[in-house]
């Protein structure tokens, strides 16, 4: 399974915000969809982190 850096969803979100400010509304929404997908993918690798720290 490919491990994505945690910064990737942030970078995609920055891209979405910049694209929005440049006037590309629909593109910004699609880039947000991509960011959301990446975020959920990154999340599954950290879902039990608090338990790992404690146990």
């Amino acid at each position, binding site marked *: 399974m490919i*491990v994505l*850096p*945690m*910064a990737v*969803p*942030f*970078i995609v*979100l*920055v891209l*979405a*915000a*910049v694209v*929005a*400010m440049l006037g590309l*509304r629909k593109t*910004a*929404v699609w880039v*947000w969809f991509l*960011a*959301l997908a990446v*975020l*959920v993918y*990154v*999340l599954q*690798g*950290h*879902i*039990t*982190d*608090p*338990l*790992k*720290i*404690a*146990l």
Partner: protein
Amino acid sequence: MTALARALNALALLGICAVLGVAFYWQLARGELPCPLCLVQRAAFLGAGLGFMLNVRFGSSESHYGVAIVSALVGGAVAARQVLLHVVPGTGSYGSALLGWHFYTWALVAFFLIALFAAALLFIEAQFAEGVSDWRPTVLAQVLGWLFVLIALGNAVSTLLECGFGPCPDNPTGYELLRK
């Protein structure tokens, strides 16, 4: 877009910028690094902020509110997950508390309020009459938008420094990219 809807969207965007600003203050001034789940919640705040920013920048659209609500639901689910994990006896907590609650507990409340606020704004039907193509952003809208971009960029750089190019440590103790 009505003046009321415009003002409330700008207010929501400012609120999210303030939340991320406080988180940044805790990270930089108090040296408390965000955990991976905390970072996911920050990204969800950015997603919700993007929804309000789109409304401020282009005028109101149902899809913009959708962006805010879905982001808040994802962030809320992650915050709830973290709260529930720390409820387990012996698991302790992560980070210090603010006004008696940990940041992930505040985040859960904030995400719930964001989703509720965005849903409530959808009741102002007059805001959709103009359509997004006719909307011209004000100078204030431009300033708010670029402020949001700046905060998003700051979070991206900070996360890259903290986690590096691999998986983020479960319990980060320093900035991975700044280690000698």
